[in-house]
């Protein structure tokens, strides 16, 4: 068995709102191997985004441990580049090229000249070379997300963390972006941890799916996705139904439990 790249062991996450202490996830376990496209799937409130933030180092588990390459995650860092859902994740005062270069230089991992070359390479990969000197506000939503992905990949992080990156896009663009992400993966085989609430997206993007149930977020199942080329086939439909059934049974039980 290959040594897992990212290990999440018995992680319980809690955060405080003004009035409540909320348990976002309760004793979640999973491990991500190198070159996995690992998807966290679940309805809202299942703590999948919070879990991703914890892997990003933005919050500490109250119980359990998150390790990356055997090292405990205790703060945010450029070895785990994040791609967010929001379009405003690009720095508006920097051009596309500068946005991609900035983390490379700021983290001290690359010199300016190296960063320039790498940035150009990855901007080319997401087919935005023509817009390299544009400011983000002149780009469409899909283009902004592509820049964010290029920025994440240019860093060549140990793992790329994507928090519903396509959720704010229109359906056509979303589908195209999913395809492009898979093509990029074919190129470099990067490891990605991908959060989504869309079953279809999970099946299409992921090779491994962690299904979570809400209140508090717990692991419901860990499944293999279908083969890449059959994402629209019968198998995929069956898997989708299976996942759907698992989520559905959960939501039927819940009101009973609450009464």
């Amino acid at each position, binding site marked *: 068995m290959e040594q897992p790249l990212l290990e999440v062991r018995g992680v319980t996450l809690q955060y405080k709102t003004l009035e409540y202490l909320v348990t976002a996830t309760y004793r979640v376990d999973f491990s991500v191997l190198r070159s996995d496209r690992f998807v966290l799937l679940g309805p809202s409130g299942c703590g999948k985004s919070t879990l991703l933030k914890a892997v990003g180092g933005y919050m500490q588990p109250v119980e359990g441990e998150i390790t990356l390459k055997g090292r405990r995650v205790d703060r945010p860092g450029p070895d785990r580049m994040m791609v967010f859902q929001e379009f405003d994740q690009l720095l508006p005062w920097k051009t596309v090229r500068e946005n991609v270069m900035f983390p490379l230089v700021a*983290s001290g991992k690359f010199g300016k000249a190296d960063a320039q070359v790498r940035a150009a390479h990855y901007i080319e990969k997401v087919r935005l070379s023509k817009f390299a000197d544009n400011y983000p506000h002149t780009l469409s939503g899909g283009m902004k997300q592509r820049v964010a992905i290029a920025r994440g990949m240019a860093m060549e992080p140990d793992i790329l963390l994507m928090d519903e990156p396509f959720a704010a896009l229109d359906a056509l663009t979303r589908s195209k972006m999913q395809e492009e992400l898979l093509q990029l993966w074919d190129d470099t085989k990067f490891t990605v941890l991908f959060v989504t609430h869309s079953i279809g997206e999970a099946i299409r993007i992921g090779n491994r799916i962690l299904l979570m149930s809400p209140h508090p977020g717990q692991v419901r199942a860990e499944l293999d996705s279908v083969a890449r080329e059959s994402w629209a086939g019968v198998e995929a439909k069956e898997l989708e139904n299976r996942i759907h059934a698992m989520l559905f049974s959960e939501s039927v039980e819940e009101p009973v439990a609450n009464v």
Partner: protein
Amino acid sequence: MSERKERLVTPQSAAASGDLGTVVEKPLSLWERLYGRSVLRKIAVLIFLAVLWEVYARWLDNPLLFPTFSATVEAFYDGIMTGGLPGRAWYSLRILVTGYAIGIACAALLTAAAISSRLGADFLDTLTSMFNPLPAIALLPLALIWFGLGQGSLVFVLVHSVLWAVALNTHSGFLSVSNTLRMVGRNYGLTGPSYVVRLLIPAAFPSILTGLKIGWAFAWRTLIAAELVFGVSSGSGGLGWFIYENKNQLEIPSVFAGLFSVILIGLFVENVIFRNIELRTIRRWGMQS
């Protein structure tokens, strides 16, 4: 059952058909282009006001109360050539820049304290809400006692007029930086001062610039007002004192010329300096339209 057929259209060359579809891109007419420039529109407004002034003053025909526009321009010209108007303006501006710079430095210190701890934020909050409503000029009598008759007092009231506006806007700008951008910054491993300089300040720049503009406007008004009260320090004074002196000598066109310079410098700083900073930064970045 639907009788409708499928329809497939190949896009035809629009230029051949010769109707509205042909206008893919067409330059606007000269008039439309000129009217579209706010500078030109503003100049037109200024010319209109000057004409109005001239006509009214001639009709009133009382140069002691309200000199004509042309007399004012003449006095202004004389003032520049022989009356030492540039020297006075320079004197005022020098003090202004000193006060402005010290004010910004103090604001930076206060804001730094405010973002590094909650107590610092409360401190800034309390101070700003106490001192912001207090007109700087109201501190002048006190300043005169503390710093004497001279530059020290002027700089003190200037600092007061700049500090709160800049600190307040900068801090609220920092607070309104989106959570996503903050997370992006920390994702890059930015911490401490480099996080502030490379992420927070540019992200909050629209608010900071607003603060700087308000601070400048307060400072300029305060300075002229303060100079009207006293301007003498080793025999020279600023623009405010120029106005006051000429009023005493009943050189009313020169009074107007002094006011005119105050306006001109104000306009220049707001419409040329700040405007250019805006164009090169927040407008270019699409952070303000």
